């Protein structure tokens, strides 16, 4: 923390304050979400920051204790709503691991495509908004067309855009359509050029560098102590990535790099996110290639054979007794789950998104705890901003990629 210089000399024991208290948030446009920070400022320098969270707490963990497992998926949408598919698929993976469902290779690769698209869309928002907060609006406007294209891909696959509820326990509810593939290919064709343009605008931009370099930095030791994960930890120089350490969805078959920074400041976080987008593009291409290499039955199966959890085809429900029974059981939440507990994590767009699932043998979770990366690293915010300027505090918040939905569960 920088030494704070007092400009006004007051008599000793003066009751008058030399500092001001201001509220940054909860509904300030610069906070991109419902965050309140009570700042004690001396001029423009922050002496003390006290974050208050919980404005949009919706008790997901409590609600999940009464929901059949498939109905928990829409709750996970609303955690990190900038990359909802990762949350959905992370939850599906947790349930599948818990009840022991084998997922066909094709479904795994399709999931990789969707999760990496979600990662790109999340990083796009974070990095382009970082530009907006430092005064550069152009990048945001250009690049948002491609987030729109990603949302169109979601829409083609699952019917919705923001809170996707994508896929099912066991795979996907339907195969990707021709239009979906066409859109994915269009994205892969056009996006790298746009991302390059975006980087050209920012990476070596003098104003952007001066606004972000050395701002909101954190050392690797402190980042680890605060439980940082994801791009924020990697920017501090620790190459921890759940996709590498505990691979899921066959990530171990893929070839990708884990970018790391050195100083953990806003600029490093920005660079790490940008590089991750390039890696995600490469991962999507590899996944498409791997799908193309699949032979026989494997090349067409987009869901597992898990009648207790995966809804049968509608035409089977109307014509076959067994399908009708399973359909009814699933919809009414009458599927018993074995007892036990499992912690399963996926690499969310802003860190390790963990699901701690405890079952007592009932039909819903006995306890479901979400390890929300935002909530855990937001507590480092006072340490990051104390001693810095007010405008830097906004940038720091922006580059941490805080999502209010995830923070407040």
């Amino acid at each position, binding site marked *: 923390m920088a030494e704070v210089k007092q400009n006004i000399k007051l008599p000793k024991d003066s009751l008058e304050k030399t500092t001001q208290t201001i509220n940054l948030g909860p509904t300030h446009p610069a906070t991109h979400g419902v965050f309140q920070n009570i700042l004690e400022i001396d001029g423009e320098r922050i002496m003390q920051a006290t974050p208050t969270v*919980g404005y949009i707490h919706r008790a997901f963990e409590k609600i999940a204790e009464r929901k059949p497992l498939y109905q928990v998926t829409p709750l996970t949408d609303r955690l990190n709503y900038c990359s909802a598919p990762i949350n959905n698929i992370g939850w599906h993976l947790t349930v599948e691991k818990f009840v022991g469902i084998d997922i066909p290779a094709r479904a795994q690769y399709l999931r990789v495509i969707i999760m990496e698209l979600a990662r790109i869309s999340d990083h796009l928002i974070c990095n382009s908004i970082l530009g907006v907060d430092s005064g550069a609006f152009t990048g945001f406007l250009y690049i948002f067309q491609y987030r729109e294209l990603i949302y169109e891909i979601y829409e083609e696959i699952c019917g919705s855009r923001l809170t996707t509820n994508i896929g099912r326990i066991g795979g996907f509810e339907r195969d990707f359509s021709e239009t979906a593939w066409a859109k994915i290919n269009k994205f892969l064709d056009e996006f790298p050029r746009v991302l390059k343009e975006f980087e050209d605008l920012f990476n070596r931009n003098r104003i952007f560098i001066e606004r972000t370099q050395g701002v909101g930095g954190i050392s690797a030791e402190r980042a680890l102590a605060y*439980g940082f994960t994801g791009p924020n930890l990697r920017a501090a120089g620790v190459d921890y990535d759940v996709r590498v350490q505990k691979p899921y969805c066959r990530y171990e078959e893929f070839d990708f790099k884990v970018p790391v920074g050195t100083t953990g400041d806003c600029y490093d976080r920005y660079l790490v996110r940008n590089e991750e987008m390039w890696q995600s593009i490469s991962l999507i291409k590899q996944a498409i290639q791997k799908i193309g290499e699949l032979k026989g039955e494997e090349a067409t199966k987009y869901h597992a054979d898990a009648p207790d959890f995966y809804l049968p085809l509608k035409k089977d429900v109307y014509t076959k007794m067994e399908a009708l029974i399973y359909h009814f059981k699933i919809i009414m939440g009458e599927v018993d789950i074995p007892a036990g507990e*499992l*912690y399963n994590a996926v690499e969310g767009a802003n860190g390790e998104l*963990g699901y701690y699932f405890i079952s*007592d043998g009932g039909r819903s979770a006995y306890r479901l705890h979400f390890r929300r990366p935002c*909530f855990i690293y937001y*507590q480092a915010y006072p340490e990051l901003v104390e001693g810095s300027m007010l405008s830097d505090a906004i940038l720091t918040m922006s580059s941490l990629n805080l999502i209010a939905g995830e923070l407040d569960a």
Partner: protein
Amino acid sequence: MLNSKFVLDKLIEKFGESVFGYEEQFDMMAIYGDKELNLKMLQFLYDDEDLAFRFMTDLTAIHYPNNKGEELVVTYLLYNMPKNFHIRLKFALDINKPDIYTASKLHATANWLERECYDFYGVNFVGHPNLIRVMNVDEMDYFPMRKEFPLEDQTRTDKDDEMFGRGGHFNFGKFSV
């Protein structure tokens, strides 16, 4: 190479009778310990060169209303990042005296996670620098994630826990069982 048995042996060697038991599911060992020694165990797991569990991935609580005297369980998920190994610690508390030492001095990340546990389960982390509610309003005088607070409106009669596979019974009028 780190494995569950090695960690367990080390803990038993150090803490003896205070390690109550363990269970292993999905390649993760959960070790039950004496709540009085929670901080000592965390410190030992942190300091020991071979164990070095220096990253706290998660901390939460669970409520088991039927385990009399051990209703609340505080659970820590620790991670040895270089060796890529997780371990879970569990400490059972009496709901009438839910005191346990805070880990926030050892792991900065425990600060808000403990506040969350306090907020939802009423676990009193002794020595915590700022043990106030983090999600709910400060005026709240109960701990909402405890099992005695059902999710549904108490006045509703058309829904019952039985529908979700446990507890209660559904009122079928004269056909009640």
